[in-house]
């Protein structure tokens, strides 16, 4: 690896903040005749009012029904006629709204997209329609044990007092009024602190002269959300949330505890450690013990989901009810040994190679470039963070990783969430912690 030149280099780009506070990143990439425009706003589900969870998601969906100047049908027809499409992502602390289009239609599509952002219709009938759609989708989630187990895991881990412990339900959606969505848009969707990436086939000076004034015309004042505090660290006994769904032949399990956030100094160390434990698919210890050796599951993995200042470490899997206790015990035993003995030099070398090698895929294509740039800016990082990623990873030592494991991973005070046939699995879970029983139809 060369010491002078970074292994990963973004294409040339121009980044400038407009008078309205919007940071625009222009990335000409003329490989194919297409463009992606993506706007990231630092507000998300954590802004939802208590008992009205779902506001941010409804707001983003409603926004995409078009600007006030057009009917919803006219907007959909105009956009879809060109082959363009919208996309969105609603995270805990951010929202992304974007569109992709052939470059030959960009002159019409980009201003239309921007009008939608700047002056959304937020129409009442569309709101009613979307609320019904979201209600039906939430009802449909009741048949997905993988979804249920995660909702209950987060509810137990963070508790109802913290936004990370709350999720939208049929009841919370019902309580949301159009005014709540309008308030969310007025307060949270504004150009200051937002980032816009324009990537693809365009001439940079022509694009700037056509669209910079347009982007600067978004002048909502908004209100910056206060930084989200980390929830308190759990102490004491492990809690088992047992969610009864009597028709299931399999039990879905989620096991874990809180973890450092994205901005923590140990973030990359915990990510590499997680790869070795359960993030590395067939290379991981959990997969090897429970699927490859035992044949007890189709899949088992661990992940650390991060927000700015806190995260959650979670092992997840599913197995037939009769062996749920055995799989839980084995997974905990693998986890305990991982914490006690740490990683080997061989484990670490492979994990580092994975982290460095996989970066090539993360910058393939204009969609991935836009995603990566927005991810960097969300955490106030510049491009050098990626361009020097390989050097930082290469410098990690076994002692660094093992220290981070000791600091952040543990097998006490866990949250275990299990969705399955309670009558069959309860006895095998009883020894793992204090059981809290739920029915799958009960809101988490």
């Amino acid at each position: 690896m060369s010491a002078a030149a970074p292994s990963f280099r973004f294409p040339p780009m121009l980044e400038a903040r407009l008078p309205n506070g919007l940071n625009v990143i222009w990335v000409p990439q003329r490989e194919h005749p297409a463009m992606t425009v993506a706007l990231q706003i630092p507000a998300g589900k954590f802004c939802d009012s208590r008992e009205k969870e779902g506001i941010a998601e409804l707001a983003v969906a409603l926004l995409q029904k078009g600007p006030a100047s057009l009917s919803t049908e006219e907007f959909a027809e105009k956009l879809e006629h060109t082959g363009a499409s919208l996309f969105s992502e609603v995270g805990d602390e951010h929202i992304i709204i974007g569109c992709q289009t052939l470059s030959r239609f960009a002159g019409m599509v980009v201003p239309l997209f921007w009008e939608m952002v700047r002056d959304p219709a937020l129409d009442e009938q569309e709101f009613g329609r979307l609320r019904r759609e979201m209600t039906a989708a939430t009802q449909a989630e009741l048949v997905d044990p993988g979804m249920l187990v995660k909702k209950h895991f987060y509810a137990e881990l963070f508790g109802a007092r913290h936004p990370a412990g709350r999720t939208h339900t049929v009841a919370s959606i019902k309580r949301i009024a159009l005014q709540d969505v309008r308030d969310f848009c007025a307060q949270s969707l504004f150009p200051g602190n937002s980032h816009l990436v324009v990537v693809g086939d365009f001439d940079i000076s022509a694009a700037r002269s056509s669209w910079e004034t347009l982007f600067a015309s978004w002048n909502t004042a908004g209100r910056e959300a206060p930084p989200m505090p980390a929830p308190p660290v759990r102490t004491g006994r492990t809690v088992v949330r047992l969610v009864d769904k009597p028709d299931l032949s399999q039990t879905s399990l989620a096991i874990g505890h809180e973890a450092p956030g994205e901005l923590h100094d140990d973030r990359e160390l915990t990510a590499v450690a997680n790869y070795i434990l359960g993030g590395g698919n067939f290379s991981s210890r959990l997969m090897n013990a429970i699927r490859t050796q035992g044949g007890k599951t189709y899949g088992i993995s661990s992940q650390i989901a991060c927000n700015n200042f806190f995260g959650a470490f979670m092992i997840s899997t599913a197995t037939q009810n009769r062996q749920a206790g055995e799989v839980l015990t084995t997974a905990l035993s693998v986890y305990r040994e991982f914490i006690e003995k740490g990683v080997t030099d061989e484990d670490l070398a492979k994990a580092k190679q994975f982290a460095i090698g996989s970066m090539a895929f993360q910058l393939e294509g204009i969609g991935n470039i836009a995603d990566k740039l927005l991810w960097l800016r969300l955490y106030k990082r510049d491009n050098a963070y990626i361009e020097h990623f390989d050097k930082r990873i290469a410098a990690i030592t076994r002692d660094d990783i093992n220290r981070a494991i000791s600091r952040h991973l543990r097998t006490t005070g866990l949250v275990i969430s299990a969705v399955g046939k309670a009558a069959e699995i309860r006895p095998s879970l009883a020894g793992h912690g204090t059981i809290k029983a739920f029915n799958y139809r009960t809101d988490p």
Partner: protein
Amino acid sequence: MLNRIVERTLANGLKVICLKKTGAPVVSVQIWYRTGSVNERDGVRGISHMLEHMMFRGSATIGPEVHARRINDVGGHCNAFTAEDVTAFFNNVPRDCFDMVLSLEADRMNALTLSADLLKTERKVIIEEYHTYMNNPVTKAFLEFRRQFFAGNPYETSPLGILENIQTITAADCRAYYDLWYSPDNAVAVIVGDIESEDQVFERVAAVLGAVRGRSGGAARPDGHFIAPVKPAGIQRMKRRVDFDVPLLVMGFPAPPSSSRDALPLEIMQQVVSQGESSRLYGELVRRQSLAVMAGGMNHYLRHAGMSLFFAVFTPDVSAARIETALHRQIEIVRNHGITDSELEKVKNATLTHRVFEMYSAEHLCQRIGFSEIVEGNYRLWVERLATLEKLTVDELVDAVRRYWNDEEMHVLHLQPKKISPLLFIAGAAKRLFKKKVTV
């Protein structure tokens, strides 16, 4: 870019298709075998999927799951899937790991272990996967619907197989299946990515995968045991009460095999009817009539047959009969009156946009080429699709619809919730009252 695709067939019968694509220092190597659940006989339904799993369980020189680990170790990822007509294996790696992937693929094409011990463990994994699907009542009901739709031919069983068969398939069954179907003359290698040159790729593939010898011993491979489905006598309806809170209605019509000249016209009509907010179904059932919460559709093309599916999700206060009538009405309208030039133009633009965005990913390009080569019969059908689309007229599209979306061959699945949430019922009724007030 697609006119730069090149192909060669090696002496052992392996077809190699290659495309140089720059933009990221990665390469995708995929091996597509011309076999899937359509080739299974009674008693071993699920063996194709089992072989797919066993292909990761090692050979004389490579241990169980070592293939996947070696790919992971360089930052790549690999996976596989089993479908009705094909079983495909994917490897995406940094470009300097190309040779390593070829060796791994040659190894499992040449000498898979397939021991009874390994099969015993992997069978458990497959049964776990089976339960994961079957624990979803909607999937379970849809598989039943599919059995009825394809009654009497091998497509009636999904690639997931039959549990009783999965429990009894032996290592000898797997060995016989492997020897017959997992042979270089029954496979296509697709390579897309940041390669040095096509010639260099062919040279490397010939040296490594070209050295694998076939094991079928000249045995004829039955072409899918395919029997054309018996045409049903009139509309076939299936109703199931399930533990799923949202009523769902699915309407299915026969579609042509993927290689048919009618496949593209029918795909265009499907898009006009069901794709996007400006589609016929969304505009009519969701927006104007407020009958459904969501509506859409898709075509499922197979090598010997196909299905055109339409669906609507609705609230419990609307009768399934009303939804069926409304869905059917939209089919009837396009069947009798066709579509507008503007709708055709919209589909052309959408298809072109989709194609251009596919070009950014080596993996997606590989998939499209592999699927088209095996399931459609020739990857050039996919390459030339945009040109073919340009020439199609509205009359040709309507002709295709009239040939396939016929009432006497219509299948309907109605999923009715076991429990109806009063909240949903009230919300649905209120919605219609409100709608009535504002529209009359």
